[in-house]
């Protein structure tokens, strides 16, 4: 490496510009899980399903009146709304009050 006094450089930025993305708010929370239908959205990695099963067992014990419905995104690294199953996903979600999701990482 040259000495600190040797050479002087005015350099351009390698970091690309990017358009800002408009931000949206998340949706209103539910007041309580009792009597609610909870969706369990499970992605492909192998720990996702047992994690959500463990969550479901605990929720059933604490909220006996809650019900549960699973949805599996079986295509690794593909957003569900870009797949043929988008309508199935939308129909599933319509019946759900709140969702717990796990990717598995």
């Amino acid at each position, binding site marked *: *490496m*040259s*000495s*600190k006094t*040797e*050479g*002087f*450089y*005015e*350099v*351009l*930025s*390698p*970091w*690309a510009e*990017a*358009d800002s*993305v*408009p*931000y*949206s*708010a*998340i*949706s*209103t*929370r*539910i*007041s*309580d*899980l009792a009597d609610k239908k909870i*969706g369990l*959205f*499970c992605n*492909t*990695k*192998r*720990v996702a*399903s*047992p*994690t959500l099963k*463990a*969550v479901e067992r*605990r929720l059933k014990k604490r909220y006996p009146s809650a019900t549960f419905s699973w949805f*599996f995104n*079986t*295509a*690794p*690294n*593909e*957003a569900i*709304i*870009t797949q043929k199953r988008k309508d199935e996903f939308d129909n599933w*979600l319509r019946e759900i009050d*709140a*969702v717990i*999701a*796990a*990717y*598995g*990482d």
Partner: protein
Amino acid sequence: MYDAVSIEDRQKPVVMLANYGFVNDAESASRSKGMPGVRVISTKVPCESTVLEDIEAGVDGSWDDIITALTKPLTAEEKSPRVEKTETPARIIFKGSLEEVNRFFYRRGWTDGLPIIPPTEEAVLEMLMGTDLPADYLLGKLQSRSGKATIEKIAINAVMAGALPTYMPVLIAGTIDLLESEQGFMGYTTFGFSTGSWSPFWVINGPIRNHLNINNSSGAFSPGNIANATIGRAMGLIIKNIGGVRKGIEDMGVMGNPMKYTMVIAENEEESPWEPLHVEHGYNKEDSTISLSFPQSFLQHYPPGSDAASILQSVIDNITRGMRYTIVFNPSTAKNLAREGYNKENIKKYVAEKKLVPAAQIKAQLGAVVTPGSSLQQSSRDTAEMVPLIRDHRVIRVIVGGGPGAFVAHLIGGGATPGKKEIQKIELPKNWNKLVGKYKNVVPIYAKY
């Protein structure tokens, strides 16, 4: 994380469970999709764990947080998330000595850890001589940050890598290869960032190989040739600085991969008995191309004999699980195979047909991605039955490279679904011959001793 954003978009509250090591990654993904407030719970559920006790303990540790994330009213910030102002960096980002420039770039996370050449206006202008495209020409927006891949940004990263202006056409084509990569699991958006530490691997074909002195002979994968070294390095910097892929945030490679510094080879078309890779893809021999795959591993093996049966048995013995394969035969081995009637196509078919593994092994490996209800889980194959490891011979590439000797190389990992984008034609500027003449003699001349 994109699915969690889709759920919130549909006005349903969601909480995302993520291992504590992936929280930054999850938050980056939700911000990039315009919903920074998605509630992510950091858990101690171990990644990829199959031990139920560990999973249960991880859930127990996050139990209260999960309930709270679904029920606690939104904060003012969550109701009206403030859009961060887009950073518009000054054109001249820094002034200083070589050492100071290097420290500044390193601290910004803009380098690969090695020293860089300062991208001065003058050096970038020289680099831009390698293309007829204007500096502000936008090729596209590169994931994960949707950074604007302009010709100037490519040139700046090329200067930093130590590339020559004659490499610009290759870097532009390589960037297009990334931009047009298949969406979903088999493309750059997986292999660029995933825990699997996949590395871009670039194969150059056509006349440009010789114009740029890209090594395709002895030690082709070793350091020591400026084209092989800096083309791959520049592409790595393009992914980092234009794509915005940060190690440990978007790039979640568990082990990382030394091939990410650079992994470039030219096919040795002159000594190959077969048609080159780009001709297999429908290009003319006179065209120049760059092709992209994403291997995880590089291995070499030594066939016990130089006859076709010995060579191919060694290939089969050394093929391991992957989604895409590149087999690199040295010229003499390739000629021996050709002499016994083998071409690229029937080598691929032979390997795919003969590489058998127990069905149980396939099922165990697929278990990583098998989810309840999938057809894979319902497979009733006899677990002792020997089945092909490779179901579609088109996932294998065969190229010729390397020097005299017997060793054969395999690059095993990921890449495009056969038939999807993996190769890009390299377009040359009008002044190409003059430019090549200017830089052609940048070659190492070793001292005699």
